[in-house]
Each structure stands twice: as C-alpha cells, then as structure tokens.
C-alpha cells in the first residue's frame, strides 16, 4: 500500500474529529492533528481506535503517544501492517 492510499483511508477517520473542516481538504504528510486540524486532544484515542479497526492492527501505548500527526500515523500503520 503506498502512502497516498494510506492517506486516502486515513482521511475519513480524521475528518470525523477535525474541527477545522477546511484543513481536512488539504491533508498531507505534514498535517498535525491538533494544531492544523484542531482535533480535541481527548479524541486522539478515538482516532487510534478507528485506525485499529480500519487497518485491522493493534497500536501499542508507546506508538499511541507519538501518533500526533499524519507522518507518525503513516509510519506506525506501515510498521504494524508489516509485522501483522
């Protein structure tokens, strides 16, 4: 799966929680969940739950802590998919 595909599957998940709907339209690898998309920090755990379900992976506590932007999310998803 290439990165463009990953972002495409990630976008609807993130869009659910993003308060800045305009920023969702221009999601790219540098997008920060809180600063750019204004996702409520409490919702970050919900994003992770939805990602786990979408990609059928399990994200550990350490990875959860650093999943704060699109780049980190992609890295973590790719990593987990590899070891599946």
């Amino acid at each position: 799966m290439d990165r463009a595909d990953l972002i495409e599957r990630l976008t609807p998940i993130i869009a659910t929680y993003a308060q800045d709907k305009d920023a969702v339209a221009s999601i790219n690898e540098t997008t920060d969940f809180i600063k750019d998309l204004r996702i409520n920090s409490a919702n970050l755990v919900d994003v992770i739950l939805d990602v786990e379900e979408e990609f059928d992976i399990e994200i550990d506590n350490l990875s959860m802590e650093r999943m704060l932007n699109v780049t980190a999310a992609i890295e973590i998803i790719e990593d987990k998919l590899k070891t599946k």
Partner: protein
Amino acid sequence: MHNRVVVTGLGVVAPNGVGLTAFTEAIKNGTSGINHDPQLEQLQFSCQIAGKPELSDEFIAQYFSPLELRNFNSTGILYGVIAGMDAWKNAGLNINQDSDEPAWDSGTIFGTGTSGIDKFRESIYKVDELQLKKLGSTAVVQTMASGISAYLGGKLGLGNQTTTNSSACITGTESILMAYERIKTGQATKMLAGSTGDSGPYIWAGFDAMKVCTYKHNQSPMQGSRPMSASASGFVPGSGAGALVLESLDSAFKRGATIYAEILGGHINSGGQRGSGTMTAPNSIAVQRCIKGALQNAGINASEVDAINGHLTATAKDATEIQNWSLALDRKNKDFPYINSLKSTIGHCLSAAGSIECIASILQLHQDFIFPNINCEDLNPEITDIIDFNKIPQQLLNTNVNIVAKASFGFGDVNACIILKKYT
C-alpha cells in the same frame, strides 16, 4: 437586598409531549404517555409499562453533532440537553457558538439520579472482556454524575457555577430552589435549573425488585398510573427532563423577557429517617414542616394557596401525603386547594419528576388552568375523608390560578416544597 427571581424560559422532554407546545396540550387534555415496553416484557419485569419520551434521529440531530453522537449511549444526557437548550432558546437567549467569552453571570444546577446507565453497562462489559481501550474518550463524561451539567455548560457557554445535584425524587425541585438561592443572593443573574432521568430496564429494575411498581396494568398501560385512586397499585416508571431558566427580575425586565412565574421561595429538609421516616418512607412531621417552612420562606399564608401539585406517586402513601398537606395548611374538605398529580399521565419520572412537574405547575399559573387528574374515577375513600372530591379535578379547569405549592419527596427521607406565583 435580595433579588426577586422569575422564570423566563421553559423546556421539556416528557413521555406525553416533547417541547412546550406538545406538553401543554397533553397535560390540558390528560393525554397519557404510558406505553407497553417490549424490552421490559422480554426481561420479565413485573411492571412492563413505562413512560419514555419519543425522539426521532432527525430531531436529535438538531441538538447534537454527528461527532457527539458517536458511541453516545446516555438517555439522561440526551433528554437533559434537549430540554436545557430549548429552555434557553425559549427565554430568548443566544446559544453563542462563536464567542470565546463564557457568560460569566449564567450557570446551571441540573440534577440527575444516575448518569448514562446504559453507557456504564456497556463500559463494564468491555472492561471485563479485557477491551478497556475500546471505551474511547466519552465513557467518563457520559457516566459522571455531572455529565449533564457539563454537556449543557459547553453547549451554552456558561461561566457561572455549573453543577449537578442529586437527591432521589426531589432532585428536580431541589435544583430549582438551589438555583433560586444563587440568583436571590446575587451570585448569578441567570441559572438554568432542571433535572433529567435515564430510561430503560437498568434504571428501573431496582424499583421493580422492590415491588413498588404496578404489575396489574401490563395489558392496559394508559390506566396503569393511578394516583389518589382506590385501585392505585404502585407507580409506573417514567423518564425525561425538565429545564427552567431562572433570572433576576431586574435582568428579565431589562431584556423585556416573557415572565412565566415568580418563585416566592421554598424549603428543603429531611426527616432524618427517624419517627415514621425510613430510607424509603417519609417522616410525616418532616413533610409538614417542609410545607410550612416553604410558606414561611415565601411570606404567604396557607389560605393563599390556590392549587397543589403533589408528589402523589400512586402508592398507599398517597393518602398520607394528602393528610400531611391538610395538616400543614390547616385546610380540609371544601376549603382544601385544588390538587393534581402529573404522574397519572407521565408516570414517576424519578430524578426528572420534580422539574417536569414544576413546569406543569408554572404553565397552570401562566395560562390559568388546572390540568386534570386521570385514572382516579374511583377516588381513595381515605383521601375523600380528608378533602372534597371536587378539589381533585378530573376535567380541565379553566380558572384563575395565582399561587401553586409544589412538593417532591424522595428516598433518604428528603423533602422539597416550592411556592410559585403568577407574576403580576
């Protein structure tokens, strides 16, 4: 110098009517909101009838965003938010989404018995199945007792005290009296008062187990709730929410707000589970003191009370309650005020009862009527020994109503009585 306190907004989510217009029609017509509940039957409850507000998904979407509705499973918060936002709008106040500044002089005291009991059940199962992580981010806010005031505080941008009270079946009446005190003493200008109560088997089961609900009307739900009737056989569980915007008279006057009624005062006490009082039965001396204390606090004479809205749940205690009112007011037979119980049409909405019933009382003052009692064609003779049957209207009465006394009594031997007056 104390502020006078008036009611300037009302919102209601009741089993027999959602929204002020539907509810007003329903109480005037004596329309029952009690239905057979298939889930209660399936779970083999003794009492398989209940009062639940009907809300469509489209309607709910007007109050909650899709994100808020994800994994949302709390009927109490659902009812409370709708009633609260409706009351705010009904008072002509803005729901300001854009301002960064909270309304410093506006707060809420919004009560509940439990919060999000279905969410709580769901969460407990997940924890036991080692799926704790799947609780997500909203299990806490839906199940904390103050969930309802927290949701409302955010929706309305409240900057004053934002809290939840809880005291069994007096919760709603107590919330109004607490909010009243806060405005009276100048600590807030506007307070959203009210209460809510969850629906469903997990909130009602304990009452069914105590055998305090009727099991005789599973085939005739609308005849099931029978306050003051000789054939009263226990209460019918209900649910919903009522919300009232309380405001200083000065503020209401300056805004040119509609004033539904003035709160003259009230009293809250407990029988201490002494004498005839227990965890679940009232101490009659305390009940009488509560009513007398309310009159004194409001600065009125017992003879000025035009109508009583009772607690009257449809149990053997109804006659005791009438006796207590009669002794406290020193009025009986034809001299007794009119009395009614909203529970005949909506059941006992538990923590939501006091606020919904206060709204019905206030509508009576504002529109000059006494709503009819239903299901008491066969009045309990112990009651008609004390008061004249004409004082228990079974048809809508269009008559001038100036002062209503409303009381609620609850487990823990707690009592609350509020005195409401037409604003003139």
